[in-house]
């Protein structure tokens, strides 16, 4: 694909990324991160993705299966697909928690999520999710990048590439406490998209909140001069840089670096405020569960997500990582996991609503797959990418709505199957992007988030 300047798109982007390039006067005023016009009117301006790493069981949370109650303990009556652990396959296992109906929609939610249950009328359930990865690494990579055989840009990077970001003083794609395993940074990397679209990690799953808070973004705090003195130093540096640019044909790349230094200086002043949750009211901190040791970590993540979204960060991910992989001790550990996230998630939903952010922010909840209807060993469930539940809430999607279904055992998605490619296509559509048109030329062909697949499921849209 050639554009008017005759440069191939990649070279063009490389220059654009350098700041001004050949974009002419407009390029001098804008850079590649300023908000861009979408393909059509967007319903969603920004996304918060609550990622439950490990694979929460759909059967035990949001998709009850009466048949399993009836056939509890019976041998598996259907053909099993490729699974992760072939050993210790036992009989069918009923949900280990009671389900209760909530709200106008009468949505059934298990005792694991009483607080989220209260918000059921705001949720749009996708009960027919399908992925191709049977192991965590593959499943995470596909969920985040669309494929697992190759290294590709993360969905957050694609969104940023397509839309830019609304706040030039903060990174546009932020992932809070991500896991370093199962694909690690590949899950938030920009791959062949220019480096500025990569996600900025705020700590990692192994770190405590207290360790992250002092310097959430690398090198945000000066180890040299600070405050006015640093400005004094920067003025000297920029004077030198301007003289150098003048002596060197006013090379746009040199100008771009002068701007980047200013941006960095501004970011270091503005960003700490965005990450500082101490200013939040007692009521808000309570709403997210920051007052309780159990919910504090994920509550902090959710509250931070709201603060960042509020400030225009395009894509924020929170990770509850890596917790949900219950090949055994399902009862004990799913109970513990849900207790850590239930209140913070409900707090986030209520807070977004109260602040009017629900109308243009989309929350997505889910793991990399669900879990099997049969027991693995005495008290576990194996991975199930063949049919599982995720949900969305907020802008652009129907509220109190249930879409798709798995079979009566909760194993295969059978109704309105929604492959991860479809999820991506639908997400981009909600943000005003045609997933077929958001392409990047690399190694001789145009690449998309949705690879060569993906269809938009308009049925879930409000």
């Amino acid at each position: 694909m050639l554009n008017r300047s005759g440069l191939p798109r990649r070279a063009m982007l490389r220059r654009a990324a350098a700041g001004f390039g050949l974009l002419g006067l407009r390029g001098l005023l804008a850079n590649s991160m300023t908000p861009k016009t979408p393909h059509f009117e967007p319903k969603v301006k920004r996304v918060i993705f609550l990622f439950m790493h490990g694979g929460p069981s759909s059967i035990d949370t949001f998709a009850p299966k009466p048949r399993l109650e009836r056939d509890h303990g019976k041998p598996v009556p259907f053909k099993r697909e490729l699974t992760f652990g072939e050993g210790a396959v036992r009989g069918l296992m009923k949900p280990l928690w009671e389900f209760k109906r909530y709200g106008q929609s009468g949505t059934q939610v298990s005792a694991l999520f009483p607080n989220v249950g209260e918000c059921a009328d705001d949720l749009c359930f996708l009960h027919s999710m399908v992925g191709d990865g049977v192991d965590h690494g593959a499943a995470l990579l596909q969920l985040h990048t669309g494929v697992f055989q190759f290294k590709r840009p993360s969905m957050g990077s694609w969104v940023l590439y397509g839309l830019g970001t609304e706040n030039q003083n903060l990174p546009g794609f932020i992932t809070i406490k991500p896991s370093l395993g199962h694909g690690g940074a590949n899950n938030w990397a920009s791959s062949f998209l220019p480096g500025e679209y990569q996600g900025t990690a705020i700590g990692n799953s192994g770190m405590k909140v207290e360790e992250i808070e002092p310097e959430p973004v690398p090198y945000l705090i000066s180890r040299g001069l600070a405050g006015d003195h640093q400005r004094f130093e920067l003025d000297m540096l920029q004077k030198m840089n301007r003289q150098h640019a003048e002596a060197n044909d006013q090379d746009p790349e040199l100008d771009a670096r002068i701007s980047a230094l200013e941006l960095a200086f501004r970011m270091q002043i503005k960003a700490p405020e965005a990450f500082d949750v101490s200013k939040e009211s007692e009521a808000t901190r309570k709403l997210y569960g920051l007052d309780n040791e159990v919910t504090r970590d994920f509550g902090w993540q959710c509250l931070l997500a709201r603060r960042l979204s509020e400030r225009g960060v395009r894509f924020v991910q929170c990770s509850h990582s890596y917790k949900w992989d219950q090949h055994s001790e399902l009862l004990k550990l799913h109970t513990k996991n849900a207790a850590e996230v239930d209140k913070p998630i409900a707090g986030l939903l209520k807070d977004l609503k109260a602040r009017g952010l629900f109308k243009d922010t989309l929350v997505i909840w889910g793991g990399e797959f669900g879990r099997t209807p049969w027991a693995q060993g005495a008290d576990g469930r194996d991975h199930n990418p063949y049919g599982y539940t995720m949900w969305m809430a907020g802008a652009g999607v129907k509220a109190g709505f249930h879409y798709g279904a798995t079979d009566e055992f909760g194993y295969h998605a059978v109704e309105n199957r929604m492959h991860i490619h479809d999820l991506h296509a639908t997400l981009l559509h909600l943000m005003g992007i045609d997933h077929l048109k958001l392409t990047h030329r690399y190694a001789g062909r145009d690449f998309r988030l949705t690879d060569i697949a993906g269809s938009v499921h308009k049925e879930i849209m409000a």
Partner: protein
Amino acid sequence: MRRLVLLIALPLAASEHFEKKVRPLFAEKCLGCHSGKTQMGGLNLATGAGADAARILAAVEYQGKVKMPPTGKLPDAGIAAVKAWIEEGGKWPGAAARTESAGDGRGHWAFQPLKAAASGASIDRFIQAKLKSKPARTDKLTLLRRVTYNLTGLPPTLEEITSFQADNSPQAFSKVVDRLLASPRYGERWGRHWLDVARLADSTGMDEDNLYPHAWRYRDFVVRSFNEDVPFDRFIHQQIAGDLLPYKNKEERARNLTATGFLALGPRPLAQQDRFQAVYDIVDEQIDTVSKVFLGMTLSCARCHDHKFDPLLTTDYYAMASIFASTTQFRNYGRPGSISYMHYEPLDADAWARYEQHRRRTYAKQFEMEEALAEDLGRDSAPLRQSIAARLEAAWKAIHKNEGQPDQWVKWLRANCDKAFLKPFNEATETNIAAVAAEYEKTYNSSASKWDQSLENWRSRFAKEVLEDRALPERPKPNAEAHPFFAAATFNGGPMEVAETPRVRLLRLEWEHLKKTQPEEPEMVSAVVDGPSVDQHVFVRGNIYNPGEAVPKRFPLVLAGARQKPIETGSGRLELARWLTSPDNPLTSRVLVNRVWQWHFGEALVRTPSNWGATGEKPSHPELLEYLAKRFMDSGWSMKELHRLILLSETYQMSARAPKEIRDSDPGNRLFSRFPRVRMSIEQIRDSLLALDGSLEHTMGGTLLVNSAGKRQKVDADEIRRRTLYLPVRRGSIPPLLSTFDFGDATTPGESRGRTNVAPQALFMLNSKFVIERSRGVARRLLDQSALSDAQRVEQAYLMTLTRPPTPAETDSALSYIAALEKRLATDGHLAAWQSFCHVLLSSNEFVYLN
């Protein structure tokens, strides 16, 4: 033959319908009985042999006597698809059909044979022919800075600056070039270029990101090869087929094996449970890397369909896949639910044989001992297990009634009387002791039989895993929490402990001796070797469960022609390596010199260095490309000769500045009307900061993953003083410093580093401890020279960091800045002000951009 003719006539749409809808259906439902060795009813639905359209339709519609598949009717959509195919003629397409069209793209410029250049040809002639005027030369110091950073990645020292300035001979510059090419720093800089291309990293990336503990050996091999100027064709042979090359001694063999890390150290799916898929994904990664790196071709696009833009066929792809699929990828596949193991080769095969023999003897002895132990235990503990109730009862009487002699049970029960599991015993009365004791015996025997079972399971697992060369399960340990009475009574001097028999004791001593004398694991390396040769089929639409026609091993038809010598034995990698560097191969040398040009100038002649196909760019200077490629081959593939040819040209020595009208007439600098101004790489930035404050350690090679005692250690880039290329790189978590500065993903062949200017880079330069410490180091070096005046210090700072003296105005400005800052900072102002001045120089555009 008749079939082939038919096929060419077949419209594409019909064959597409077949490939999309019908073949996958056959693959899923029918091939179990109708392919390979079991071609029931003489029908092979993998190849179409014996296929009769009408009979197939009748069978799938369940209309005749034969109803297929026998397990249940196909879904309606499936039957409709078969019907539609038969209505279109029911023909059997094969990938061979379109082989005939391979000639279509033959005319593409990149596939033409290399032409000899006319006499009198030179780089400058080709470049200047397209320019309106001869470009200006750059000044001497800029040139010194340019070439020193280019060849070594480090700034010229004060001495080097002085001596070059003083040398007015015509050979002054060529002497500098020779000095730099002879420096070991050259291999560290230029080896890094190749490591980008070879997508080297220290871990498997993808799902598990496990460490490659030996990846550093490949890195050291590359650095050494560049420093020794190993002829590049040999360098290529080593990397593709080092394991198959003849060798004179162990060292050469080790080096050749290490080189194949090029193939072995790519990203690898370890947890993929479909191991067959995992193998072909690795094969694909290797095809992608080899074709892009050496041929500038995106051959892996032809995995699922013929290449959309280039005349590369799926048969070309699978002919190459056959080569890599016949190459070892995994050591073994691991158990279901666990990961596969990567293949490592010993650097010294004899040492490995000794080690492995000893290891297996040790395992065999251990197993023998365990078997004997089990037998003894079974015999000796059986009577004991029947007597527990009686012994307890007697002991109770001894303790409470003073009856009989206190035996070892009494002693043990007294010593453990505070243990919870003895509560029932301690509280027993004369009337219920018999029942209590019986209950203990029951509990014990239930625990004991579980323990026996777990030991037996372990022994059989152990034997199996030894046999299959996997990680060994650990001997189970008694679970004192779940079985407190059993664990306490049976081990560590408990009354149920069975004495070791002499034969077990002997076996144990032998085993311990073997363990003690086990030689250390010999040095290993990530390498490939030939595995069993596969009979490769095309996988239709890339689906490994949908085999189409068989393909022999060969190279792409459009490049190697139809008359290729058949590869009959082995994987074919050696043949591949030789073909890559044969004088008839039109691409390898061109692709390579284009990369070298890019590494010298920052921009290539073909600006899509890994894609020379129809969608790639055309060369800006085609004759120059021919000339360089030919000269390179004629010089015996000498990289250093190629460097001299390029560096000593006027083109390399031109100025980076140009008048506006020249810039306007060549806006993208495609004609090389001026020297491209390029931001330094992160290696150049980090290494020169270390060099400037005098803290750079010049130790070469080895690994930072383990310390000198061989223990895994954490690597903190801020604390390491080695050159950046020695920092370990995990694909799953590329050090943020590297990724921020466009290091690339270390997963796909790096064709060129990005050159972004983003805020996170600026934050590093402005705020990081690393840069601040280096600034202080440089300031200290200046201040420590007491003989210098402040103006002389400023001059030295400019020379060190920017390779030029300051103008008088710059000196004044620097001195007044330092004075003003010192005044602003109340305490410790002197060092801090000089540190800040050095920080300004080190974070300046002039420092990070090379002219």
